[in-house]
């Protein structure tokens, strides 16, 4: 179980006009964040650039010492009990490689085997599983510098998983990848989570990642946790509009108060917002027409999150 309570991290800002002055201004990167992640969960951690995602991950993994609050991973303090913690966690930084650039994947893996002191038998088994799962065989004999981004990321993932960690932290694992490769990585993560029961926490900009993968999502902006819950609940909290399209038999009967109303033959389209109590309108229009088909398109997840960010910004200004 990952427990974070009242986590804070400040970065000092240098005064650029006069680097010698010592008025220490602090930028708050993470501000009083608390959550727990239970074993077996697959959690998405999202937020705009500079929101504090990576900083949080770095505190959870024991890279950074929190300025306030505490982190426990299975009761272990990741900063002060680093070695114990590191045996249980795997970390992948999308923007930073731990593979030896001029050598084959195999070389890095053997070094990691030695560092983690993985027994021979277990290493052989684990490696053959990972080779198959991540399809490493096609580029097994090439030096890392010749691999494509997608191939390299699979290699990185295998490196992070070699010691069979029970917690996997991924910092922007799909950054810079094309659609197909992204899809492949998502599948793999799902499989890992389902089959091996690995607890996964991933940060991303790509909301599709979260939508396709995560049972739970945490949204952060300006260092504050805005939302922690399921995807469906996140949508229902949203003030953005859903789009309703209705196919009607015969001439449509229109009622007042429909926003963004469009008619195209027998098909009508309008916006609907449940938070404004507009569900009534839908009932009315269904009541006075012979409806053939209804589709309600929920607002795209980008919209939902943008809405959340905007509201957090407004609250801050107040």
């Amino acid at each position, binding site marked *: 179980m990952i427990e974070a309570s009242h986590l804070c991290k400040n970065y000092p800002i240098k005064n650029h006009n006069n680097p010698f002055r010592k008025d220490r201004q602090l930028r708050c990167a993470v501000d009083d964040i608390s959550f727990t992640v239970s074993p077996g969960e697959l959690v998405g951690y999202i937020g705009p650039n500079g929101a504090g995602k*990576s900083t949080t991950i770095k505190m959870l993994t024991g*890279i*950074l010492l929190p300025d306030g609050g505490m982190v426990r991973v299975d009761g272990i303090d990741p900063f002060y009990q680093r*070695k*114990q913690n590191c045996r249980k966690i795997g970390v992948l*930084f999308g923007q930073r490689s731990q593979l030896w650039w*001029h050598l084959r994947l195999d*070389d890095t893996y053997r070094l990691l085997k*030695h*560092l983690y002191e993985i027994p021979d038998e277990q290493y052989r088994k684990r490696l053959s599983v990972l080779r198959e799962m991540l399809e490493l065989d096609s580029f097994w004999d090439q030096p890392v510098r010749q691999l494509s981004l997608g191939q390299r990321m699979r290699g990185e993932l295998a490196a992070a998983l070699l010691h069979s960690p029970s917690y996997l932290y991924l910092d922007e694992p799909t950054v810079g990848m094309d659609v197909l490769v992204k899809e492949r990585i998502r599948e793999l993560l799902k499989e890992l989570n389902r089959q091996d029961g690995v607890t996964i926490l991933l940060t991303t900009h790509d909301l599709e990642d979260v939508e396709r993968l995560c049972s739970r999502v945490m949204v952060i902006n300006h260092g504050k946790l805005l939302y922690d819950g399921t995807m469906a609940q996140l949508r229902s909290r949203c003030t953005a509009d859903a789009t309703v399209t209705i196919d009607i038999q015969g001439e449509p009967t229109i009622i007042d108060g429909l926003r963004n109303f469009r008619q195209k033959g027998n098909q009508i389209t309008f916006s609907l917002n449940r938070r404004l109590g507009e569900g009534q309108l839908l009932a009315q229009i269904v009541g006075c027409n012979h409806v053939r088909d209804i589709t309600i398109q929920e607002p795209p997840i980008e919209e939902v999150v943008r809405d959340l960010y905007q509201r957090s910004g407004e609250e801050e200004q107040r």
Partner: protein
Amino acid sequence: MRIRNRGCWLAGRIVWFFQLCAMTLSMCWRGYISYKGWSALVHGIGLIIGYLGEYVVLYTMITNFPGVGGFTALEICFLYAMGLVAYALGNLHTREFWRMDELVLRGKLDLFLVRPVSPLLQLFVQDIQVGYLSHLVLGIGSMMLIKGMIGLSWDLAHWALFFFSLLAGGILMGGISLLTTPLTFWWGRSDAVTRFVRGGMRQTLQYPVTIYPKFIQRLLYIIPYAFVCYYPCLYLLEKDTSPLAVLYPFYTLLAGVITNLAFYLFWRLGLRRYNSAGG
């Protein structure tokens, strides 16, 4: 029984450590030759020319230098060669720290912090400078030669303490080379200070401490260059014949332990301020 278990455990750790060194060495070497065959060759030639340069300096000193501070020219050369050996031994493992700003400001240190082995140990073995072993051969060879020319006759204790002094000097020199690098955690850079301490002040090794002005002498005790080879040489070259002189090589070891410990604590303190990079 318990002590024996402890012993086995320690032996296991040491074997593990040397295996690790062998692995990273082989990886560095294969990475190095994998794509730059020609430049590796040119680099090798450059190194040989560099070492020949050291010979030229030694030769020039022996033939032209009258001696200073109670040391003859030959004895100065002995000091010089000993400094060379200590420097080479002490910097086998410090290469990664020359790029401290990259580690700290670019957040490369992150990768070493998520593995179950001390990040310091990983950095030590990351880029071992085998090339320095040639300094070692050169230095010890010269010292043997000079010893013959001076006409010293050493007993067993002298020989034992000679090798002990080289080792202790290496440990001390390693500590000195690393001592200022954690400043990067506070300042963002430390290469200027480190270059002064590891490179600039190193020049003081080749002369007896007594020839320097008082304030520099004091500095040589604070950053304990005085103990790297001057003190052991007082004993080895029989400059100080009091019975207590036999302790001088142990001063070197003591200074080495203290310096390395200071570095370690300084590093630990710095790591708490580590901010990594990126949002």
